[in-house]
């Protein structure tokens, strides 16, 4: 019933599972993005122990998809957070976990119906989740998906061009 935070205009990552090819480049680039050096080879060869991908690829046979935080309108993780670490930015709509405030109670993991929040135990226990690469124009998982199984767009754009269907506009000459 509520139009919170102008969610319609918020750009989100949409998933086209029929085109996920299970290459896991999204995970790889997510890890690089959230590494210290942000350099892929260095990140993997030297820093990887600290880095969790914030996008999860699920795969059985030829079915696969990559999923990350949906940045829900009424985000249950924000509701469940006892420390105030999990916040939904009222302007951007992005749900982020303030790692300084997070105490690792895992309430967010308990309530996230997508199961896309993970425990990061590398340092202080904190919940790790997609931050929508807020400093990038397009999140790196979307940028690096070789088959556009992930798309970054706002709701209007999504409705205009529904994911997974073709426009098939006829050329009227």
């Amino acid at each position: 019933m509520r139009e919170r935070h102008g969610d319609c205009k918020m750009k989100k990552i949409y998933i086209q599972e029929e085109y996920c090819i299970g290459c896991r480049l999204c995970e790889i680039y997510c890890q690089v993005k959230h590494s210290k050096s942000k350099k892929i080879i260095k990140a993997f060869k030297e820093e990887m122990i600290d880095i969790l991908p914030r996008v999860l690829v699920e795969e059985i046979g030829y079915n696969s998809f990559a999923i990350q935080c949906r940045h829900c309108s009424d985000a249950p993780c924000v509701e469940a957070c006892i420390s105030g670490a999990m916040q939904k930015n009222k302007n951007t709509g992005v749900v982020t976990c303030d790692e300084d405030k997070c105490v690792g109670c895992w309430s967010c993991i308990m309530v996230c119906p997508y199961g896309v929040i993970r425990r990061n135990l590398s340092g202080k226990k904190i919940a790790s989740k997609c931050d929508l690469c807020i400093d990038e124009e397009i999140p790196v998982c979307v940028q690096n998906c070789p088959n556009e199984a992930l798309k970054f767009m706002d709701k209007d754009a999504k409705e205009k061009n529904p994911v997974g269907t073709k426009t098939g506009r006829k050329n009227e000459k």
Partner: protein
Amino acid sequence: MALELKQSEFEIERDKNKCISCEVCVRQCSNDVHEYDSDQDTLYSDNSKCVGCRRCETLCPTGALKIRNREDQFKTNYNWTSSHLSNIYRQADSGGVLLTGMGSDRAHTVYWDHILFNAAQVTNPSIDPLREPMEIRTFIGRKPERLDFEINRNKDSKESLKDTNIKLKTKVPPQLDLSTPIMFSAMSYGSVSLNVCKSLAAAASEFGTYYNTGEGGLHKDLYGYAKNTIVQVASGRYGVDVDYLNKGAAVEIKIGQGAKPGIGGHLPGEKVTGDISNTRMIPEGTDAISPAPHHDIYSIEDLAQLIYALKEATNWLKPVGVKVSAVHNIAPIASGIVRAGADFVTIDGLRGGTGAAPQIIRDNVGIPIELAIASVDERLREEGIRYRSSIIAAGSIRSSADVIKAIALGADAVYIGTAALVAIGCHLCQKCYTGKCNWGIATQDPYLTKRLNPEIGTRKLLNLLRGWSLEIKEMLGGAGINAIESLKSNREHLRGINLNDRELAVLGIKHAGEAW
């Protein structure tokens, strides 16, 4: 089991300093070339399985992989080349006909590369296509010899024609209306994945041109693109019924294919899965065998019968054309086809592509499309029947320059097949017949077909059509022409280079350096 003598064609180089063991290569290779050893946290690659498709190289996020042609595979020998030796080894192992995919890779003369296009200077201004109209709209179909009008006007009155009632008396036969003289060649659902078909269909529809179903019938997901569909009727008649014929904008009878003149097709039963069996209207799991000839066409008058049967079936509303391979007698064959009533003749040259063909046929049978087009156009003009049919050139059109040259030699439009597939990822590894295409093109494996997102495919094909069309306009403008019609058969704008007199004569062009 005896040692197999065939050797690996490729060498896979993995830069250990760059490899991050992310296993993207492992997951992407349908030939199981790469393998991760968790004990050693290392990846190994098996050269012998590599087909050189370069999927892994392309997707490797760190550029750690390089696929190289294996050099010095055999001792250098200009007669017994590596390919001959490899083929003999393969055949000694298998005892069968060697199959291959895509167009011939032999070093036959590519005449396109020996033909140069013209430009206007001083005496004739070149035209800037960005500022001036530049028309490349093309119509495919039979043209009447002349147009008759009914004009009710006293010739001596001063009444202008504008105020007069003019009626067109001639009925113009059905035409395909192309926004650019480029169409997508026949590629059947079965030989390529449905996502390829969707990409081709959507791009053709969006751009205002046509794609061709090939001989695999028409999947119901493609019904929406009927206006931009050319339905093919081949010797197997897969998926052909009256509804199918009427789902297309035109019908093409396929007699031959440039890659395998005189040879039929064979889609193994394991590829005839549910959707394909429905589309082809054959039982699931049965081999789909297209006979070499149409068994109801043993002569030209049989062809005429089929052409008129198809015209009847489509209420004379759709052009009916015939596709043949470019063979030695192509000019009189084309003439016969035109006289048999075909509204367009598709000529597929020696270097045309295929999903599967005997390598020996592909590389040794037929003639190049350039020569075929030139001689067919000339012959039809000599006979005064050129207007009756459009000519579509096919068989390795690689660039907009090839398109321009084909039209100046006498084609009305071209078909592109390989170029379209390359646009959506094909790397010409020529292993289409294995069904394990890592680019998700020539395969029905759902794990692989996913790799071609038709949205991307459509976009890339649109870009290709757009890019080539712009280039065609640039070249036209440069030559001082602003309508593609004025290029048709305009061989004055072509010059040969490095060609002998015989070749020039067949092509009907002067040598570079010779003026008008």
